């Protein structure tokens, strides 16, 4: 099949410029990586605007961008729920309520918090499952990127995989988390600059949102109106599933416990910026639908052959690339491709940095070689980076033979995230949660998620759509974890109060109110929530 897009010299110049800058940034950060804290946590020295943008970009990987455009081609404006319900509230909750415990407790990783608050078993469960999943995800993004560029640009699969792996390896090895964060901020700018032209052209071509509304089915243009019953809308869900499943459990489960994003907040220079990090990120996040939802709608309105083939095959992922080749001249096209490349690579780098931190501190430093000096762990971290990249390349090849693995990874992540949120919620806000309560709660939540999935696939449970099943599965897993944690905690031994200081609400020193009113996280968090409510109302 001939490549869909042909690139000219200018496009390659744009791509090349980006690769060069990434490597230069990594190289110039080398001399600052003197301690473990420098390498794994950027020395806890970064300002809020950098960690905030990185926080957002770490999540805004290429798979997310392509996937969300595909979703809006498939489901219409309802896709905004993934942002306005499924992300913003959780991000704000993290910043206002949970960051004081994460940052104040000085933990280096999410599993470390579980160790301090609960016990080693809980940490181990989280650390091992997260480490495995994150390095697999890294390989999956690598493969997805190579496949996309092969299909659309005719690049060699092996060539892209190895090239991307080497570049990411270099800049993470040299600059650790800081490299990853700086490149994520660059990615943020490139994504907007690369994709906004598509939005302008698409809207101009179709006559704006009003023009789009004329060309698309009614249910495509409303986000809440058709959620009364699952059969009324293309998503196959009703409003309860959206609020409880997506809005509450799945979204909080991801944003508040996934180390890949939390790590960026932990790299902030003080507790105030760490709290502002997710809140700062929430503002551009609110606007991301502009570059993912509108292109999806435009694709359906403007590319009839795409709509037909996609409806038959269920495969909507090519929407973004087809739209790009439809509208963008060379030059701007190169910029858009670079934006996607940047997102893929920074996604992989994010996974690799999360992996090397959790491996070095939570697995190696806890179970294999304890009590060594910091320089030892710094070295281990660097070698783990190499290992992580090698494993990712290996995974990329495995995924090539078993493409279903990609779907399973997302699914498996969701088995863990939803229950984990219950474990954290109780851990941070209820003094009575005990170590064994935490462990068994988490274990039972994960088991219920897996069990629910199996029963759904066997036909025992019925839902109108796969997505509906996912949302409810997450809800039941969370509820199980919540109830079991409380239940087991009532019968097992608590930790001493002295061990819990700084980890739980009510046992932590109250922060002196030295921040000016208009800089407080609570104020900006509220602004973000109100803005989100307005947006929901506007697109009702």
């Amino acid at each position, binding site marked *: 099949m001939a490549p869909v897009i042909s690139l000219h010299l200018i496009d390659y110049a744009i791509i090349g*410029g980006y690769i060069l800058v990434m490597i230069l940034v990594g190289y110039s950060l080398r001399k600052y990586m003197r301690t473990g804290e420098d390498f794994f946590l950027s020395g806890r020295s970064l300002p809020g605007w950098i960690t905030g943008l990185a926080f957002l970009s770490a999540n805004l990987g290429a798979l997310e961008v392509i996937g969300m455009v595909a979703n809006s081609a498939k489901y219409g404006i309802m896709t905004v729920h993934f942002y306005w319900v499924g992300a913003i509230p959780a991000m704000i909750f993290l910043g206002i309520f949970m960051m004081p415990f994460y940052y104040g407790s000085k933990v280096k990783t999410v599993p470390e918090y579980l160790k301090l608050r609960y016990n080693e078993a809980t940490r181990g469960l989280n650390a091992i499952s997260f480490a495995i999943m994150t390095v697999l995800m890294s390989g999956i993004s690598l493969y997805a990127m190579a496949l996309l560029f092969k299909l659309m640009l005719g690049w060699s699969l092996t060539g892209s995989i190895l090239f991307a792996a080497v570049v990411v390896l270099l800049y993470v090895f040299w600059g650790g988390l*800081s490299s990853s964060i700086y490149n994520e901020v660059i990615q943020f700018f490139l994504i907007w600059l690369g994709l906004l032209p598509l939005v302008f052209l698409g809207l101009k071509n179709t006559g704006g949102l009003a023009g789009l509304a004329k060309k698309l089915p009614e249910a495509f243009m409303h986000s809440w109106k058709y959620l009364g019953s699952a059969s009324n809308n293309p998503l196959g869900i009703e409003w309860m599933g959206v609020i409880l499943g997506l809005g509450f459990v799945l979204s909080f489960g991801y944003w508040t416990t996934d180390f890949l994003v939390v790590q960026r907040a932990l790299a902030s220079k003080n507790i105030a910026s760490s709290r502002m990090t997710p809140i700062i990120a929430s503002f551009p996040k609110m606007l991301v639908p502009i570059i993912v939802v509108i292109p999806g709608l435009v694709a359906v309105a403007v590319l009839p052959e795409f709509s037909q083939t996609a409806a038959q095959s269920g495969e909507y992922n090519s929407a973004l690339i087809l739209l790009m080749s439809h509208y963008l001249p060379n030059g701007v096209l190169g910029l858009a491709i670079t934006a996607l490349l940047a997102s893929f690579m920074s996604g992989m780098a994010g996974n690799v940095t999360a992996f090397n931190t959790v491996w070095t501190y939570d697995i190696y430093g806890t179970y294999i070689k304890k009590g060594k000096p910091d320089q030892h762990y710094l070295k281990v971290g660097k070698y783990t980076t190499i290992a992580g990249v090698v494993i990712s390349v290996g995974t990329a090849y495995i995924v090539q033979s078993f493409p279903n693995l990609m779907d399973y990874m997302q699914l498996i992540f969701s088995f863990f995230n939803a229950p984990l949120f219950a474990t954290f919620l109780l851990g941070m806000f209820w003094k009575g949660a005990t170590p064994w309560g935490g462990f068994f709660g988490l274990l039972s939540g994960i088991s219920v998620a897996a069990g629910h999935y199996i029963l759904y696939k066997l036909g025992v449970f019925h839902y109108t759509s796969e997505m509906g099943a996912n949302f409810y599965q997450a809800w039941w897993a969370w509820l199980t974890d919540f109830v079991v944690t409380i239940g087991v905690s009532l019968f097992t031994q608590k930790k001493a109060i002295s061990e819990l200081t700084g980890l739980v609400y009510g046992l932590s020193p109250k922060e002196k109110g030295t921040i000016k009113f208009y800089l407080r996280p609570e104020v900006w968090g509220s602004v973000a929530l109100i803005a989100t409510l307005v947006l929901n109302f506007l697109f009702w």
Partner: protein
Amino acid sequence: MEENKKAHLLDLKLPLGGLLSFYGLIMVFYGLFSGKEAYQRSLGINLNLFWGALILVIGAALLLSSFRKRRAPKP
């Protein structure tokens, strides 16, 4: 808190501004010298010229802000 211990490890505005300025420049030049057929897809609008100009402005602003900070007298 020793905030000036690391300050900004590397001023991010420098590589970002440099990259965007480079992009802006090549896109504007390409836009000036490429023929009309290139812009049939983009509804006749010379995107490289306009978008490139915007990107150049953003890149230049970042670079400027980065240089002014360096020039500012240290406390």
